[in-house]
């Protein structure tokens, strides 16, 4: 019995247990403080569904050996561009949503390929490089949003040239599209079936991909590049493929996120998004070298669960220290990334 427990602890990891404990504590407090628990759960489910795919996008980049994709903003921008093209064509509902995904495919393949080439040139410092590439491309796209030839009146600024910061999806019937699909109510908790299903399907497709020939090659290239080379695998090519896949999933991720949120967020919106996704997957037990789909799901659940529950609890708990939740989140999120780095560093420090 004790052994089973120990094994569980070892597999699950102490940091995750602490976080899980923190999460449960928050839930208990929420009930205790008389918050609408069912509603909190519904919000958590939505948040998990809408962010899950962005977290999933980090997975291929870790697996292929380029480390957590701090340059996920590139994928997000591809998705947003795809979305805007779909809007420009005044498509509605699912047509719009899937057209957006379809438009973002060539974009993200192209961008991912170029970005992958760059990452191969900076082996060893991919993460640093990715952060700055991500940020500078976000700035370039700010210029892009102003000058790209989008003319649809629902995206245009009310006064001048360019595309709005916030673009509503309501009119195109995209808003809450997946959230409301087959949604049902269990004891006050609204289950956003379509959203969760889409997330699960994405996980499943990625799982299938990881088990394909290319997926296995990518895995080997990331796990042990020298082995992969000896096994006749082109390591650089696999890293590029991983980057492309990550970029593409990032594009899909932002579209799912946006449909749940109801708006496209341009300009500064994508800037810090990779950090949140990376924090989530690391909390889920991934390291900068290893990650699995389980890590994605566990991490998404814990990280966003805490975010959703913590804020109202803190608000209800005491008005004076309300922003504690925000500060706690900042400390926990970055603390966990630091912890992961330290774990990864242990092996090298010899």
């Amino acid at each position, binding site marked *: 019995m004790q052994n089973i427990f120990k094994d569980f602890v070892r597999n699950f990891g102490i940091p995750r247990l602490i976080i899980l404990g923190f999460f449960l504590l928050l839930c208990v407090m929420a009930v205790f403080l008389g918050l*609408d628990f069912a*509603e909190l759960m519904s*919000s958590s489910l*939505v*948040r998990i569904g809408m962010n899950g795919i962005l977290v999933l996008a980090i997975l291929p980049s870790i697996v292929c050996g380029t480390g957590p994709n701090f340059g996920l903003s590139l994928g997000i921008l591809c998705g947003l561009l795809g979305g805007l093209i779909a809007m420009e064509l005044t498509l509605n509902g699912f047509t719009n949503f899937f057209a957006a995904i379809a438009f973002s495919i060539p974009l993200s393949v192209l961008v991912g390929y170029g970005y992958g080439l760059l990452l191969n040139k900076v082996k060893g410092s991919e993460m640093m490089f990715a952060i700055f590439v991500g940020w500078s491309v976000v700035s370039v796209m*700010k210029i892009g949003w*102003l000058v790209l030839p989008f003319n*649809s*009146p*629902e995206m*245009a*600024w*009310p*006064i*001048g040239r*360019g595309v*709005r*910061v*916030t*673009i*509503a*999806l*309501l*009119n195109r019937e995209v808003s809450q599209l997946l959230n409301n699909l087959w949604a049902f109510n269990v004891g006050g908790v609204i289950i956003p079936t379509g959203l969760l299903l889409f997330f699960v399907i994405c996980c499943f497709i990625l799982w299938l991909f990881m088990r394909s020939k290319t997926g296995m090659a990518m895995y080997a290239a990331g796990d042990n590049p020298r082995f992969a080379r000896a096994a006749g695998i082109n390591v650089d090519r696999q890293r590029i493929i991983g980057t492309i896949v990550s970029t593409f999933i990032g594009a899909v991720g932002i579209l799912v996120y946006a449909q749940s*949120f*109801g*708006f496209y*967020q341009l*300009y*500064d*919106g994508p*800037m*810090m*998004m990779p*950090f*949140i996704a990376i924090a989530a997957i690391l909390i889920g037990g991934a390291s900068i070298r290893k990650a699995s789909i389980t890590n994605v799901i566990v991490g998404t659940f814990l990280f966003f669960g805490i*975010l*959703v529950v913590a*804020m*109202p609890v*803190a*608000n209800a708990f005491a*008005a004076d220290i*309300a*922003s504690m*939740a*925000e500060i706690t*989140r*900042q400390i926990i*999120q*970055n603390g966990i990334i630091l912890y992961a780095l330290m774990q990864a560093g242990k092996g090298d420090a010899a």
Partner: protein
Amino acid sequence: MIKKSLLILLVFAMVLSLFGCGDPGAAPDEPPAEEVTWKVGIMTGTVTQNEEEFRMATQMQERYGAEHILITTYPDKFMDEQETTITNMLEMASDPLVKAIVMVQAVPGAVAAVDKVRAIRPDIMIILGQPQEDPDIIAQKGDLVLMIDDLGRGEQIAEHAKALGAETFVHYSFPRHMSIEVLAERRRLIKEKAEELGILFIDEDAPDPTGDAGVPGTQQFIMEDVPRKIAQYGPNTVVFGTNCAMQEPLIRQTFEHGGLFAVQCCPSPYHALPAALGIEVPEDKKGDVPWMLEQISVKCAEAGMTGRVATWPVPVNMMFIEASVEYAVAWINGETNGMVDKAKLQEIMEGIAGGGVTLTEWPGTDNFFLYLSDHYIF
């Protein structure tokens, strides 16, 4: 090492003296064109923050011509990059023809920037709009300061909410904003008045959009929290947020779940309402305020929200820019009575607003004017 630093010194001196000797008398970048004798500089934000100000600045440039109006921006991350704010304002001030600088909004960094400008150009008139730094300091730095009467708005908003039929008032903010004195004071006034009028006042904290969670973190929280509040306190709940990024989700969720939306943080028909309601703006209707008000009314009617949504009929920050520039021009042309001419300012603003405008002064100052408008209920 020594040789290298000497080299640098030498190059620096050469470049310097070349430049220095190159422009005896007049600045070299002065256009040879016909007698341009004055310029007004406008410093405003990019559209990332808020579209209105930047567009108004562009319109002013069109009105007076690029040779008379200079536009520059402060950074999107003005909190972190005050150096850039300073440089950009200095750049305008370095043009000897610039007689006045208008900065709307006067974001943090304005005080430092004005100080540096005064050091090289004590003669320039500086008009600050919508200051975010401490009002008492701002009043000393700017020659003329314009601000929405946020303190006056405190009571006004509460009464306005009551008029809309509010039973509950939810005030969303976060610690950094509450570290701005005016906003904190406004909240206190709303709260006092609301409770006096029998409205339940709820204080709610959201994540800071400039924090590392970013704007999405704030917006997601608003998306989730507004339905909770409406469910808890009923449809006659007014939601009010102090940050611009909050407005779109606030409006969206109010429409979705049937609450009351009294007014935005920065009252204007352009602010957040068109984006949140997905109003389509054809090319020929851009910048048309009455048309926009009408469109919003249509949307409200569609959503059954008529009489439950309101804003100010004038885009205030746009008006500040326009009024400031007009006032500056008038001052340059000697049409004002000294630097601070309340009557002239009032006249200009009435011309823009197309109706009566009352200006009050910030307590203890004579150059710091507060503006309050009535609400326009859709």
